[in-house]
């Protein structure tokens, strides 16, 4: 198992490097003076041409591409992602303030969404062809058919505007406590909105996989041992059904991370989605690029965790 984890972690490295290389090349191809992105734009405006040239030389911006890439990679590892022209801040600092919020929201959505989706799917498969099954299936079909921001608007109206149980948006109370439990009520509606698609998709998939697995021969073997039905369903059925379900979770992670742009927009949630949307309107492309790449790296890491969970479930993957 440890070997598998190590192998997965090592496999991350070339992928992360590829992401960084793409980001670097794209930034490099952007028109305009690269120096504007390498230093504070305010300072840049006050420099004379001569000083600019000196800065370029000092920062190695005139060196060949591979050298510049390595320099740039070194800066990134130190948290310097270059400067944003629209906010006049280092993109690294901007990310440090926003990215944790998006990560928090995405991770909670994936975890809660997976749990509920799998749970409902399991229940539907156990109560196959009963009213419970039909009800859950209907809900899941509706869940995948309605755009999630529409649910967001409905939740906003119902729980925040009409019932006033939860805040309409934002991240935390102004001047209030900032610990997790105080912030959590700001996250409930975004998480609900964000995870509905995942819940619905996983429910359908878990149900059909469970029904498929329950037809396998080893289920009959388990029954022939005189095990309780619940043990047969859970220990032998569910455990095996989880393996393909995990691939769906993996495939859905990028959708959740991308969907955060929309959800953050509905609830005015100050994550990276909103940040890059604002930057985009201001024509500040580097911010969008960096956000996309960092989100891809995050997706990659999250997928690796799901892969490791899958390997824990399936010895064939672990040992291959």
């Amino acid at each position: 198992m440890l070997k598998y984890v190590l192998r997965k972690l090592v496999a991350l490295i070339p992928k992360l490097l590829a992401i960084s290389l793409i980001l670097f090349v794209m930034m490099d191809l952007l028109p305009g003076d690269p120096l504007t992105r390498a230093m504070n734009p305010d300072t840049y405006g006050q420099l004379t041409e001569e000083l600019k040239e000196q800065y370029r030389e000092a920062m190695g911006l005139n060196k060949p591409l591979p050298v510049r890439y390595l320099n740039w990679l070194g800066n990134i590892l130190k948290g310097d992602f270059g400067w944003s022209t629209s906010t006049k801040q280092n993109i690294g600092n901007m990310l440090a303030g926003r990215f944790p919020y998006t990560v928090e929201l995405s991770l909670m959505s994936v975890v809660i969404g997976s749990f509920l989706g799998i749970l409902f799917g399991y229940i539907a498969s156990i109560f196959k062809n009963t009213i419970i099954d039909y009800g859950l299936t209907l809900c899941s079909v509706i869940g995948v058919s309605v755009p999630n921001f529409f649910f967001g608007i409905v939740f906003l109206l119902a729980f925040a505007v009409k019932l006033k149980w939860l805040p309409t948006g934002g991240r935390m109370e102004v001047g209030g406590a900032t610990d997790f439990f105080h912030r959590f009520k700001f996250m409930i509606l975004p998480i609900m909105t964000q995870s509905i698609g995942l819940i619905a998709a996983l429910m359908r998939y878990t149900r059909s996989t469970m029904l498929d697995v329950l037809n396998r021969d080893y289920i009959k073997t388990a029954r022939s041992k005189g095990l309780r039905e619940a043990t047969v369903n859970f220990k032998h059925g569910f455990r095996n059904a989880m393996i393909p379900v995990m691939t769906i979770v993996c495939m859905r992670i990028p959708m959740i991370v991308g969907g955060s742009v929309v959800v953050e927009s509905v609830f005015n949630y100050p994550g990276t989605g909103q940040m890059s949307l604002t930057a985009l309107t201001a024509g500040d492309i580097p911010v969008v690029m960096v956000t996309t790449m960092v989100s891809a790296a995050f997706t990659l890491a999250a997928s690796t965790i799901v892969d490791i969970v899958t390997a824990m479930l399936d010895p064939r993957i672990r040992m291959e």
Partner: protein
Amino acid sequence: MNRKQGRSSLTKRSLDKFFKNRMAVVGAIFVILFVGACIFAPLITPYDPTRLVPPDRELPPSAEHWLGTDRVGRDIFARILYGGRMSILIGVSSAIGATALGTIFGCIAGFFGGKVDRVLVTIQEFVSIFPSTLLIMLIVPFVGRSVPMMIFIFIITSWGAPMRIIRGRILSLKEEPFIESCRANGISGMSIMFHHMMPNTLGPVIVNASLNVAGFILSEAGLSYIGLGVPETVPTWGNIINAAKRLDIIQNTPMLWVAPGVAIGVFVLAINFFGDGLRDALDPTTR
């Protein structure tokens, strides 16, 4: 002669299976109704979806304006019909394009196998880790916002799923005895590919494409909602909702977002039922 008969009876059996599935038939009827209503929009509503009539702004639903009017006096019902045209057009063309592109890559990967396959799969896996909404945000500033570009962006960001399906099917078909017997009988590689393998991959691909139409309509709505879709002047279901972003509009003019939301929901639901029915009908292992 014989083969033709065999195929038509298979088609008949699939059709029988499809028509026995009540939800699928209802889905198909709804899809046809929606598409028909959108195509024949001028016959159904007298209003122009883009003409501004400031005196008529924010009217409640009435006999004249079935769903009321928006903030600049446009008839919402007309906008939904005309918007549906564009949304469905985008959904269908993107689905066809993405499926075609995915099919080409999938066939190449599956048929040639080996290194070609590994390279294509690695590329696909790598592309799939980029959240598509963010990818689209990256592409939009370079290509601009227009209907053809929207379709183009959808196609280049979603050929992965059909490619995986095709590749998987072809890899497993390669092991099938009937393909081996083709090869043993000296049938050329291309002929095996197009005459024997492709028809066998059609079922899942058509199902995937039909479900993709639903997916793209949802994506279009999401992107328009955050202002990254087609230009606001073009009515699409997403653009209609886009007008309802402020809390006061959401509360005061519910028709502005409820109506297009329900339109999207019902249409996508219908496509999903239709696609699921198609899946069951085309799957020879289910009865």
